[in-house]
């Protein structure tokens, strides 16, 4: 990778942040004849808000009507549905049921349906209690009815940014991980971006730094918004709980919070969460006794059978909330700077919509976009890590061609040696066991490494990798 320090090669565009938004912008820019760099403080793509959320592909039915978020969520969902199919990103259209548990909530359903209409979403439908219980027999007692949103879907939040980044890197975008931006100075037609691994020089700067986006903005003189990290804790239940849940079960939102939902995951687990708590520390993804306790209490109401199942994992993510109720996206032509901040909890869904919008704005502001010669880059075909489709261990022809795909290493998630060695040899190899599990699901299951962590660690070592990783997957 070229070192851009000092007067070395300068980039046309530097994107700060390799989350789902930054990598989506990189992928969109990659089709043009530009020298583009993506820098991120983490050791992998998607290590911030991107990796820990509810993993829902929203319809935007409940967005603030008329907001930029509403528009970009709708557009992004349309683009990502199509992209996911091409790139092999696990996605399931489970639909959602927004469940009313009190007369007041029941009375609000009509208003929510009206709001959905104003957001351009017309497919909602009222579901009376008897039909609701017929469809979701494990729902706790006391539900009065629900609003069905048939297009709400679940998606893999890990494969998505990896697919964007892989496509971008294949098209020549340079990815600089472990690169934290410390300051930005103007130098004529250039930005000199000081990082903890040298200075990067670029003509255009795109701030997609998520939880750090206000700080980057301040380095460019902005002061319009402040990130107020809002922590969401979630509990992941065992895959054996998956048959309990059909659709995503949403609560009626209050003015304070969207509330606790129950949702299947594309890996075949069931999620319960999130909490919503403002925290001062942008790195504070610790779970709390109170938070997990409140989730279990909510779970006992929504679905008592679920809470009786084994817990596989719990985690917390931070939403990049601001004092504003909408995305903070602005392009400053004079300073050749795009701020893509305040992307709250809908960034995964909206990512391709945001990228399209930002690139249009950049073009309007004077960034010269000339399509590259030759074919447009195609979406990469990513290793499939979902539960609904065929995994390598289920594919007899694939095992016959390479027995490594019949060698199951991680038993809970049925991850084969072939998939692990593929991930370690991929264009974007994992930096640690945490990265490996986001690419393969290895050690992500109910035993959390009791049976397989030692063998997974030896495979990583054999491949010359570093078996260190977070989440208790390794010793040190």
């Amino acid at each position, binding site marked *: 990778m070229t070192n851009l320090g000092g007067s070395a090669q300068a980039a046309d565009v530097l994107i700060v942040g390799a989350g789902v938004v930054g990598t989506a912008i990189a992928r969109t820019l990659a089709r043009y004849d530009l020298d583009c760099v993506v820098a991120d403080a983490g050791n992998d793509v998607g290590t911030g808000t991107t990796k820990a959320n509810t993993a829902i592909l929203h319809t935007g039915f409940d967005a603030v009507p008329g907001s930029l978020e509403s528009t970009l969520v709708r557009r992004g969902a349309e683009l990502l549905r199509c992209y996911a199919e091409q790139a092999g990103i696990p996605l399931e259209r489970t639909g959602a049921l927004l469940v009313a548990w009190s007369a007041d909530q029941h009375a609000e359903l009509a208003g929510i349906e009206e709001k959905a209409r104003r957001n351009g979403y017309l497919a909602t439908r009222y579901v009376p209690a008897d039909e609701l219980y017929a469809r979701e027999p494990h729902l706790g007692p006391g539900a009065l009815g629900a609003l069905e949103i048939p297009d709400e879907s679940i998606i893999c939040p890990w494969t998505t940014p990896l697919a964007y980044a892989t496509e971008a890197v294949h098209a020549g975008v340079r990815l600089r991980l472990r690169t934290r931006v410390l300051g930005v100075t103007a130098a004529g037609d250039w930005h000199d971006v000081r990082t903890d691994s040298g200075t990067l020089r670029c003509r255009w700067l795109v701030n997609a730094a998520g939880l750090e986006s206000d700080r980057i903005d301040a380095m460019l003189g902005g002061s319009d918004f402040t990130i107020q990290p809002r922590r969401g804790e979630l509990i992941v239940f065992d895959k054996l709980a998956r048959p309990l849940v059909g659709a995503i079960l949403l609560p009626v939102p209050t003015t304070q919070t969207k509330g606790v939902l129950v949702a299947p995951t594309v890996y075949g687990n069931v999620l319960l969460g999130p909490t919503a708590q403002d925290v001062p520390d942008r790195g504070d993804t610790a779970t709390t006794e109170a938070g997990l306790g409140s989730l279990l209490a909510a779970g006992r109401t929504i679905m008592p059978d679920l809470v009786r199942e084994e*817990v596989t994992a*719990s985690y917390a993510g931070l939403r990049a909330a601001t004092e504003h109720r909408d995305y903070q996206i602005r392009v400053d032509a004079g300073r050749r700077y795009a701020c893509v901040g305040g992307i709250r909890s809908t960034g995964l869904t909206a990512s391709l919509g945001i990228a399209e919008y930002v690139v249009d704005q950049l073009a309007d502001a004077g960034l010269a976009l000339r399509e590259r010669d030759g074919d447009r880059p195609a979406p990469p075909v990513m290793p499939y890590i979902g539960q609904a489709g065929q995994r390598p*261990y289920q594919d007899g022809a694939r095992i016959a061609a390479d027995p490594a795909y019949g060698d199951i290493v991680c038993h809970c998630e049925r991850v084969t040696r072939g998939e692990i060695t593929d991930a370690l040899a991929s264009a974007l190899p994992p930096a640690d066991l945490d990265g490996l599990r986001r690419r393969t699901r290895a050690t992500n299951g109910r035993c*959390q490494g009791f049976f397989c962590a030692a063998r997974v660690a030896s495979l990583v070592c054999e491949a010359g990798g570093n078996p260190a990783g977070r*989440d208790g997957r390794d010793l*040190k």
Partner: protein
Amino acid sequence: MNVDVLIAGAGPAGLAAAIELRRLGLGDVLVVDREQEAGGIPRHSAHTGYGIRDLHRLMTGPAYARHYRWAASAAGASVRTGTTLTGWPTVSSELEPGIGSPGTSARQHRTISATLTSPAGIEDVQARAVLLATGCRERPRSARLVPGSRPAGVLTTGELQQRVFLNGQRLTGRAVVVGAEHVSFSAMLTLLHAGARVTALVTDQPRHQSFAAFPLAAQLRWRVPVWTQTTVTGIAGSGAVTAIMLRDERDSSVRAVPCDLVVFSGDWIPDHELARLAGAELDPGTRGPVVDTALSTSVPGIFAAGNLVHAAETADVAALSGRHAAARLAAYLAGRQSPASAGPAGMADPAAGRRLSVPVEVARPLLWISPNAVSPASPMPPRGQFVLRSGAFAGRTRLEVRQGGRLLQSARARLVPGRSIRLDGRWACHVDPAGGPVLVTSGR
């Protein structure tokens, strides 16, 4: 492929069952194990204490595992490792209780299909009967909902032992072991062997739950204290663990104890996935499949043994459970037992409308009993003993076994949470097949 018996799991229970089935004259006995090597958990438990009850000698875990591998092969059982039972192609449609034709006698002679996946490919095998011996695992930190950050250096005893004894990994730094059961002391020994220092064993119980000699030796020889009435309230550290947060339940004070490793030990849960996917009813106490005294599950032709039905007993007890299941399974295949008695534990036969076996339940502080049903045709449990667990300490309490108002048995026992409690099983011969559930209580 067709076999007489398919055994899932080549640990002590599965291998002991295979040896016994061959001894009883069964032709094709296939044992599959998803690990690379047969032998189960003892493979990586380097300490001694194995083999007492089943082999009548004292050996280390790896030697014990080697013995069973050799004995199974010598007995003519075929053992396939690196092979995962990945599905039951016919179970969901044909075997699920209450679904399909109620022709019980016709079901007795059907085979059970299982899908096996290995580097050699995907293959369906037809078995006349199946024994599940899939064992158990420790609940990891996440399943115990211990809050805090999620740094590296937090693991279970199982992972620790594999890293140290199978991978040869060395460890440095300070470790805290969560738990004070037998396995917790085993984790302590593994940590010391690998080069780590052990700060303490912590338990929320008022005292340790192992043999008195273990904590005494820990204290005197290695100067490792047991901190009782201490709850883990969090894990701290970004990247690597830096501290464990502990709350002293006596005064509710919370302190951070610096450490580099945290080992969560004990708190066993059966690996019940295959049993559940086969449609077997689960016991709410053991979390393993419901089994009667013949170790038959609620699915005809599927038996279960070892720590899948009592998580966790020592390896020799698991092996003897496997041997017991083998004998009952062979009898089932020979048709020596009536179809009814080999049928679903504690469930009504939809065809005949009568109870097939008698459920056995426990009342708090008892948490579970295994087996959890009595088969009238084969009432004696493995080793003639029922195994129980308690959620609270009680010194020399009275256990009472009643069916309706009738007292079947009364015995003294010492209750220690997480520790095995044995109950002589002769009362099971006096259970009235039509008399309703049996209840085991403890009290003065």
